[in-house]
């Protein structure tokens, strides 16, 4: 009987999630008007500093081991916030690109496909980078590579610029501060 109750609860929760996705999908059209305002600025230089192995090596050489682990964990937490924000920006841009996919003009649609693909790539990289960051928090002495997410964000910025120029040639678009 306990098993049945657990399965019924799981089934109901699953049904709610699926219906929730269906409802949110239908509401996207009205909510998309405020999409651009949801993009958050990211300081890539600060991100690069936090992700720089040389900075970690320098801190390791200067600080006692216990203090280094504390500082390293604080830096990793900050890095995680950057990565999460980059992932959220990617999600917003993916939705903007999806809207533009319906554009009649071939160059705009092609740019939108490129934008969505790169946004999805960044979102994937953000998930993988977060996993690595959380593992590094558990073992602060481990090496951490954040290059893929950095490269992905740079490419995404280029794709967003291309899409923006195609849709509105007079206005420049930027999603990152270099």
């Amino acid at each position, binding site marked *: *009987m306990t*098993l*049945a109750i657990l*399965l*019924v609860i*799981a*089934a*109901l929760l*699953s*049904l709610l*999630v*699926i*219906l929730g*996705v*269906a409802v*949110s*999908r239908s509401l996207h*059209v009205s909510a*998309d*008007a405020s*999409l*651009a*305002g949801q*993009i958050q*600025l990211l300081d890539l230089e600060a991100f690069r500093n936090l992700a720089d192995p040389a900075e970690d090596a320098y801190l390791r050489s200067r600080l006692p081991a216990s203090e280094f682990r504390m500082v390293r964990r604080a830096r990793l937490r900050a890095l995680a916030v950057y990565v999460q924000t980059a992932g959220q920006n990617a*999600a917003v841009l*993916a*939705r*903007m690109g*999806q*809207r*533009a*996919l*319906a*554009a*009649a003009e071939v160059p*705009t649609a092609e740019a*939108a*496909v490129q934008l*969505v*693909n*790169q*946004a*999805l*790539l960044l*979102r*994937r990289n953000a*998930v993988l980078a977060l996993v690595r960051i959380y593992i590094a928090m558990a073992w602060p002495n481990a090496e951490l590579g954040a290059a893929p997410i950095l490269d992905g964000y740079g490419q995404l910025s280029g794709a967003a610029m291309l*899409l*923006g120029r195609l*849709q*509105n040639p007079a*206005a*420049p*678009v*930027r*999603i990152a*501060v270099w």
Partner: protein
Amino acid sequence: MLQAHSFLWHYLWLAPQCLELGLTLVLWWRGTWRRFPVFFSYLVFAAIEQIILYVLDISPKVTWQTWWRAFWAGTIVEAMLKFGVVAELLHYLLRPWPALASVGRHFISVMGVLLVLVAAVAAAFTAPDNTHWLISGSHTLMQTIYITEAGLILSVFLLAAYFHIPWERVRFGIALGLGVAWCEHLAAWALLATGALTLRRELLDFLNLATYHVAVLIWLYYLLAPLKEMPKSAVSLPENSLAVWNRELERLIQQ
């Protein structure tokens, strides 16, 4: 009203199958079945299977053992087709986005393995609710199948929602219908397999039949209703976002 062989019972068993057959005929006539051949095969098989089971059920010459054997055979083939439908949905969901194809397939594969393990453990802990293995075994089999199928379709929905993967309208409708039906079937078969609600089992039969009817109506809507044209103005990027980015860039340059 909520009794076996009542008018509502006959209607709920037969009407979705007739609608499914009508839907398959329209899809065949339009040629759109080629876009989702596995789902099309599932529709045809499920409709014919259920009509055969219905005829066997009302025929006085057919023994209950024969009916349950037919039920077993149909369930196993239908389950394989349903797993094929999930694979087809996933394939077309990820195909336009190579950045996610590998991660998406790995995620669903891992979820599939985990769900099979959970379903096996649940089956091992399910006490038989009937003295004859044909009946209790079929209940446990259905519970096992729906744990896996409901979990898989939920995983596909979560994957698409988290990564904001755009759904094609028709495939979203197929997935939505399957998701609604399989989640409800999981709850109902879990109650049946564990012997809960023993005295009012027909209520669960009605619930299963009614939910499947709803799923078929969802498929009818998404597969047959024409897609609304999106206005061109909806695809342009908002002007205010460009101004925000420019302002932020200028602020950075001046720092």
